[in-house]
C-alpha cells in the first residue's frame, strides 16, 4: 500500500464519501444518487460486475472504502453512456467510474493483472515515448504482456490479421524500429509533466 493511501485513510477516517468528493473526478455527485437502480439496469455489463454503479455509490456512502477501491467493477465500464443518458438525477456516472478507477490506481489499490488497468498502462507508456501511439508496438506489447511463450502464441494466432493490415497499409512493419514521433516531442513531454505536477499537487494539498 502506498504512502498516499495511508495519508488518505488518515485524513478521511470517518467519511469515504468526503474523500471521494475531494479526490475523484465528479465525486461530488455521489451523494445525489437516489438509489433508483436505473443505471444498474441500463448498464449492458453491470450484471456481470461484482458491483454495478448504484451499488458502488451506496458502498461509498456506507464507508466501504477498501471494497470500492479494490473492486475491478469500475474498470469494466465501456463508456457506452447508457447510464448517463438515463439517470433521473443526472449523475455523470461514466465519468465517476473512470474517476474511481484512476483514484484506485493512484493509491496502488488496483487489482494486479486487471486487464483494463494493464492495457491502460501499456497504452500510456507507449504514448509517452513518442507523443503518439505506435500501434505496432502497442499490439506487440499486448501480445507479450503475459510472457514470451504466450506472446508467440498470440502473434501466431493473429498472423493473418496482421498481414492483411499491412497489405491494406493500415500498419507499417518499419515502425518496429523506433517509429516516428510528434513534432515537438520534448515540448509534449514537458506539457504532460506539468499536468502531472498539478494533479499531484492537488492530492498533496489534500493530504
Amino acid at each position, binding site marked *: 500500500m502506498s504512502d498516499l493511501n495511508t495519508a488518505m485513510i488518515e485524513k478521511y477516517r470517518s467519511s469515504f464519501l468526503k474523500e471521494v468528493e475531494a479526490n475523484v473526478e465528479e465525486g461530488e455527485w455521489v451523494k445525489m444518487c*437516489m438509489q433508483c437502480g436505473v443505471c444498474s439496469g441500463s448498464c449492458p455489463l453491470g450484471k456481470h460486475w461484482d458491483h454495478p454503479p448504484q451499488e458502488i455509490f451506496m458502498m461509498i456512502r456506507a464507508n466501504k472504502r477498501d471494497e470500492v477501491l479494490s473492486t475491478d467493477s469500475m474498470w469494466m465500464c465501456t463508456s457506452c453512456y447508457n447510464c448517463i443518458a438515463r439517470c433521473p438525477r443526472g449523475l455523470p456516472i461514466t465519468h465517476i467510474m473512470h474517476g474511481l478507477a484512476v483514484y484506485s490506481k493512484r493509491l496502488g489499490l488496483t487489482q494486479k493483472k486487471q486487464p483494463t488497468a494493464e492495457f491502460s498502462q501499456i497504452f500510456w507508456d507507449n504514448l509517452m515515448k513518442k507523443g503518439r501511439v505506435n500501434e505496432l508496438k502497442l499490439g506487440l506489447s499486448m501480445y507479450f504482456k503475459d510472457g514470451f511463450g504466450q506472446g508467440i502464441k498470440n502473434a501466431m494466432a493473429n498472423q493473418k490479421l496482421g498481414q492483411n493490415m499491412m497489405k491494406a497499409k493500415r500498419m507499417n512493419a518499419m515502425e518496429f524500429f523506433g517509429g516516428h514521433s510528434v513534432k515537438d516531442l520534448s515540448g509534449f513531454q514537458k506539457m504532460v509533466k506539468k499536468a502531472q505536477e498539478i494533479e499531484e499537487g492537488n492530492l498533496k494539498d489534500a493530504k
Partner: protein
Amino acid sequence: MADEKKFAGYVCTGCGLGERLDAGQLETTATRDGKMQSCKQHEMLCSAEGVQMIKDDIANDDVTHVMIAACSRRAKVEAFNFTDVALTRANLREGVIWVRPDTDENTETTQEMADDYIRMACAELKSMTKPSASGEQSLNKNILVVGGGITGMTAAIEAAAAGYPVHLVEKSGKLGGAIGSYYKVIPTRSPYDAPAENPVPGMTEAIEAADNITVHLNSTVAKTDGAPGRFSVEVATESGTSETLTIGAIVQASGFKPYDANQLPEFAYDKSADVVTNHELEALAVAANGGPIKRPSDGKEVQSVCFIQNAGQCSDKEGHLTYFAGVTDLVSIKQAMYFKELNGDCDTTILFDNLRTPGAGGEDFYRAGQQSMVTFSKGIASEVVPGDSLTVKFEDKILNEETEMACDLVVLATGMEPNSGPDPYAQLMVDEAEDEEEKAKAQAALENAPPSILNLQYRQGTDLPHLKNGFTDSHFICFPYETRRTGIYSAGPVRRPMDAQQARDDATGAALKAIQAAENAGLGRAAHPRSGDLSFPSFRKEGCTQCKRCTVECPFGAINEDEEGYPMYNESRCRRCGTCMGACPVRVISFENYSVETVNQQIKNCEIPEEWDEKPRILVMACENDAYPALDQAAQAGVEINPWARVIPVRCLGSVSLSWVTDALNSGYDGIVMMGCRRDDDYQCHFVRGSAMAAERMSKVGDTLDSLNLEPERVVLHEVAITDVERAPQLINDMAETVEKIGLSPFKF
C-alpha cells in the same frame, strides 16, 4: 298565476329528430295519451326563439307544467331553465335516435321508443309540482371553527377575510396546535432548499388583530343542535361557564394525535431516552435555542443521528398503522437538516425503504437534503439496542446485507392518527355484528371511544361518521370536503394525513365550503351533488307507521325523531338523495318533483306490447350522477342500445322503492336493470350510502320474484361508473339477451 294546472308539451325537431321521427305522431301522443293541453313543435327548441316561445306561453297562457321532448335532461340545461314551472324532459336525442341505427327496418321500433318516452314524461309531469323552498330556510353568516391548530386558524382567517364572522373554539389554552410548537416547517416556496420559518406566530397575531374572529380558549363544544343556517352551539369553558351561539356552518379542524411509540419495543423507545419520535424531536430542536441539539439522556451534543422511516406505519403488524402518514419522509428530511444547521458536522442518516416526497417542492427538498450531506440509506431497521451509544441494526436493501450503525440519537418517523371523535355508528356495529369476534371488536371500539368533539344532537350520533382508520368520511373523488353531515366540513389531518401546507390549503377550501353552505341554507338550496335544488322531502304523517327506516337510512343523518317517534326532517341537512323515500315501506315520503308516484307513472305509461308482438320491455333505472351520464356519453359515441329498453333516471339508487320493481314486474316488463355507483369502502356513490342501502333493499327482491314465479335473472343491479361508456349500454343489451333466452314475462295483459 292561476291555481289551475296547465300542461304544455314541446317537441323539438332539430338535431335530426325531425328526420328520424314522425313529429306529428309525437305531438298526437303528447296530447292524446299524455293529456297535454297543448303541444308545439319547434325546429330548434333550445334556440333563443324556441326558448322565448315557451317563456311566452308561461307568461301569457298560464302554463304551469312543461314537457320538453328533445335532448337529454343533462343537455341544454341553461336554455331550458324555467324556474316558475314544473318541468320534465323526454330524452329523444341521446335516449333514442343516437342509440338506434338509421335504417328502414328500425324506423318502427325507434318511433315506438320515442312515443313511449313522451308518454312517460307526460305521466311524470302530471304528478309533479313546482319545487320551492320549505320556508324553513334562514341565513346566518357565523362560521364556527372547532380546533385552533394551523388548520383551524387558517379556516378562521380565510372565512373572516371573506367577511364572515368566526367563532374559533380551542380546547387548550393557546392557539397553534401541534405545529405551533415546531422548530421549523417544510418549505412551501421555491427554491425549497431549507426548512422554513414557523408561520404560526404570525397567524396568531393576525387572528388577534381581526375584529370578526372571536377566540374561545380552554373551550369545547358541549352541544350542537339544529341544521345549517340555524345551528345552535353551546360552547363550554373549562371553568364551567358556557354560552350558546347561533351558527350558519361549521368547520371541524380537530387535527391529529401522534402515534404512541410505546408500541414499538423493538426500537427501544420505552428503554432509552435517546430514542425519540419525530414529534418529540421538534421540542429538542426548540430547546437547543439556536445551539446544537443535545440528546435527552445526558445532554451530550448529538454527533450522529439516525432516522428510522415508517416506524409503526405502513405495516400490517399488530398495533401498527396500516397507512402512511404521507409527510413523514419530508418531515425527516426537514429534521435531518436541523442537525446540519445546528450540529455542525453531525453524521445524519435517514434509513428508508420507500422515500416519498409529495408536493410541488418535495423532490427539490429531497435534493437539498442530499446536497447538505444527509446520508440516505435504503434499509429497513429491525432493532435499536440501547446503550451509551445506540446501535441500529438494519438490512441494507442495496448491498443486501444485515448490518448496523452506531449513533447518539435515534428518531422514529412515526405516523399520525386522526382526532375524529367517536364513530357515531359504533353502537350499530355492535348490534349488527355477524359473529362473536366481530361483536367483541365492535364492543371494544365502542367502549374505548374518545370524547365527542361536536356533540351533535342528531338521531344518528354525536359526531362525523368515519371512513377507514378513523378518518372522517368524505367523498374522495367528487366532493372531498363534503362530510356526511351537511354544513359541517372537516379539514386537515382529521380528514386524511397531511402536512401543514396541505392542511392550510385544505382549511381554505373548507372555509369556502362552509360559507357556501351558510348561504345555501339561507336560500333553502341543497349542497352537493344536487346543488341549488329547492325540492325537499316531506312525509304524510297519517300514513307513517313510525318504523324509523327513514331516520336510520338517511346517509346524512338529516332526520331526527319527535317524542312520538315521527320523523322530523331538517331541510337544510338534507341532500335530496331520496334514500328515505326509497326506504319507506308505506311510501309516504315524497318530493314535489320526485316521488314514488312520479316514477310509478312513468313505469305504467310505457306501452307494454301484447305477448304475440314479441317486443319485450326492459326497464332501466339509472342513477343520474354516473350511470345516466355514462349512457349519454355512449349515445354521443354512437353505441347502440337495445330498442326494448326504457330508461328512467333516478336521483340515487338509494331512492329506488321496492314497489317500483314489483309494479314493473306485475305490469309485464320482461327485465329490470338497475345501475348505481360503487358502494364499498372505495365507494363512488354521490350520496355515500345510497347505493349500498339500495343493494341491501334489493337483496329482498328475490322473494318478490319467487312469489311471482319469475326467473331471478330478470332483475339485476350493477355498479356503474361514469367512465363505463361501453359497459353501461352492454349491460342493457345483456338483459335483452337474457330475456331472449328465458322468454317473455307471462304478466302481459
